[in-house]
């Protein structure tokens, strides 16, 4: 059913710019003809295939020149896939077997997609590759695939999702983009963010919009309105600082010496998450204790004033450390990763803790250590005992499995602190793969079940006398950081670029206000309502 004037279509907003424009629905192009046996000579089919590939290839060149910058690199890579020698050989073999040029290229691309599939690294490439195959087949069938977008006017494009070849054809008239599918990390989202085009993705209700309708794309409000009133757009909040210090400390996330130095330039109070994997991911052999001590000391010394929370290695078969020989797994995110490596690699984790203790002494800094992927109180105790037998740091764990989130109170006397990794906690709580773009809506940090979990983690930690922090990406959202403080979380750690914004937000109100806001948010039953309530409550303080 077509949405009526005033209707609100919910999705995921990209960026901060809103726009009013006229809908242009981009339909999936004409269906391609079925694959047939050839009625021409093999030489003719080969020549047809060659010229169709050349046509699409030169079209990619044009798109690359138009797009420029990093997008141009994408087109170069696509062109290389299309012009691959082996691909042409495989397609030629199908022509030898009597297939038409269109069938031959389709089959050849399918075969290679099969070979490349199943690996998350290549999934996006496989989709792009299939898109190329369709373009060649369309050329052979004489079907037009170019989008015809006007050069003038104010256009809001509506479509399933847009490929790199599509987005390169966006004209200056495109002021907004709405996609039915695709998440906040889709190609469309990335391009719209970089070009400051108002965009709402993952908006299935937009399927009812018709060409010519006037809509308001409102990314800050995570919605599209069937309206031409730009003043209805949700405003990004400007926080007015009233306190010198934020309600709870704002720390920075780092992964390298460069990060530590850059974080030092911000107002961050220490480091809330030092990801140590980067030091090992590119090492062929295990670095010696001396090398590790030297790296850690340098990074500790460079870090911003305040405690430095170091996470022990968080690697798994999808993020393998070469010298630890991790076997491939069916479901790496549910497999042997993080602290679970202790069974096979105890000496490595002990070595890391020893190096951190020596670096702590050498740098004179306050160091806290924590282990990732802890699922039981038993594991938490085993890690705490191990860490305390090696060094005099505060000891904690990451809370990212639902199992440990449920029993935070039982950690009383075992740990000094916990830190919630909301990215992984969402992934496990909602059984939604973080790498899968079509599940973006479930991984939205405003989901009521996540907020409820955070509330219970914060109160469990208080009851157990353990300090609680959040270091996931959710804490980098200033409005969400206010909610976290209101829920009783005692520190946040955010990406370096967000330190100032979160610091300002947390300095703009009292703890009593934050508690009221959190309470109102906890009553909501959808992510959209939770966010809207938080923004409204914050604006009313």
């Amino acid at each position, binding site marked *: 059913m077509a949405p009526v004037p005033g209707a609100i279509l919910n999705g995921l907003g990209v960026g901060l710019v809103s726009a009013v424009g006229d809908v242009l629905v981009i339909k999936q192009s004409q269906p391609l003809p079925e694959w047939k046996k050839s009625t021409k000579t093999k030489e003719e089919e080969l020549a047809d295939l060659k010229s169709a590939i050349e046509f699409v290839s030169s079209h990619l060149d044009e798109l690359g020149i138009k797009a420029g910058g990093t997008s141009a690199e994408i087109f170069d890579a696509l062109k*290389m*896939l299309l012009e691959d020698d082996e691909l042409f050989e495989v397609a030629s073999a199908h022509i030898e077997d009597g297939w038409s040029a269109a069938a031959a290229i389709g089959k050849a691309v399918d075969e290679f997609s099969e*070979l490349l599939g199943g690996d998350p690294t290549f999934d996006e490439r496989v989709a792009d590759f299939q898109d190329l195959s369709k373009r060649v087949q369309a050329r052979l069938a004489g079907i037009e695939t170019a989008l015809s977008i006007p050069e003038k006017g104010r256009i809001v494009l509506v479509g399933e999702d847009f490929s790199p070849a599509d987005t390169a054809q966006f004209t200056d008239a495109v002021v907004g983009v709405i996609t039915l599918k695709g998440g906040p990390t889709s190609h469309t989202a990335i391009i719209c963010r970089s070009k400051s085009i108002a965009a709402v993705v993952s908006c299935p209700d937009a399927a009812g919009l018709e060409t010519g309708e006037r809509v308001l794309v409102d990314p800050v409000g995570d919605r599209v309105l069937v309206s031409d009133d730009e003043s209805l757009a949700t405003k990004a909040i400007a926080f007015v600082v009233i306190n010198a210090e934020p309600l709870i400390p704002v720390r920075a996330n780092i992964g390298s010496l460069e990060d530590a130095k850059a974080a030092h330039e911000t107002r961050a109070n220490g480091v809330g998450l030092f990801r140590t994997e980067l030091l090992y991911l590119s090492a062929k052999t295990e670095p010696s204790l001396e090398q590790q001590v030297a790296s850690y000391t340098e990074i500790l010394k460079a870090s911003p004033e305040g405690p430095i929370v170091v996470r022990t290695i968080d690697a798994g078969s999808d993020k393998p450390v070469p010298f630890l020989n991790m076997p491939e797994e069916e479901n790496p995110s549910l497999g042997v990763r993080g602290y679970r490596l202790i069974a096979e690699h105890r000496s490595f984790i002990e070595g890391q803790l020893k190096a951190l203790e020596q670096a702590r002494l050498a740098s004179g800094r306050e160091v806290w250590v924590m282990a990732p992927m802890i699922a039981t109180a038993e594991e938490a105790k085993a890690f705490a005992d191990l860490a305390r037998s090696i060094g005099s740091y505060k000891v904690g764990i990451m809370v990212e499995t639902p199992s440990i989130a449920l029993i935070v109170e039982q950690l009383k006397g075992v740990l000094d602190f916990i830190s919630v990794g909301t990215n992984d906690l969402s992934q496990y709580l909602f059984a939604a793969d973080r790498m899968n773009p079509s599940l973006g809506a479930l991984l939205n940090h405003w989901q009521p079940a996540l907020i409820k979990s955070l509330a219970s983690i914060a109160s469990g930690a208080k009851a157990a006398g353990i300090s609680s922090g959040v270091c996931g990406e959710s804490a980098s959202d200033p409005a969400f950081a206010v909610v976290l403080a209101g829920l009783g979380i005692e520190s946040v750690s955010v990406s370096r670029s967000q330190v100032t914004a979160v610091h300002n937000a947390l300095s703009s109100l009292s703890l009593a206000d934050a508690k009221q806001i959190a309470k109102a948010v906890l009553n909501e039953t959808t992510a959209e309502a939770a966010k809207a309530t938080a923004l409204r409550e914050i604006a009313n303080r």
Partner: protein
Amino acid sequence: MSSIQGQVQVLDPIGLHARPASQIVKLVKESGLEITIGRPGQEFAKANSALRLMALKISSGEALTVEVETDDQALAEGIIAQIQEFLKAD
């Protein structure tokens, strides 16, 4: 013509993905030589196709053998060293 072999290691954290594969293919085509790459003891892939190389699904940390069809030891070593460069982390 004989062939010369050398070892390289994939250091890029994402493994042998599209970018290094295309860099290798470009180099191979420019050299005009027959070059194959594979895991030691397994079937090798002709390095004139990025798709073939990507289909090997080489992970970070794996060691590979590069075989160059030439009698020119210095040339082969240069090519192998260049391929190793492509396989380093960014």
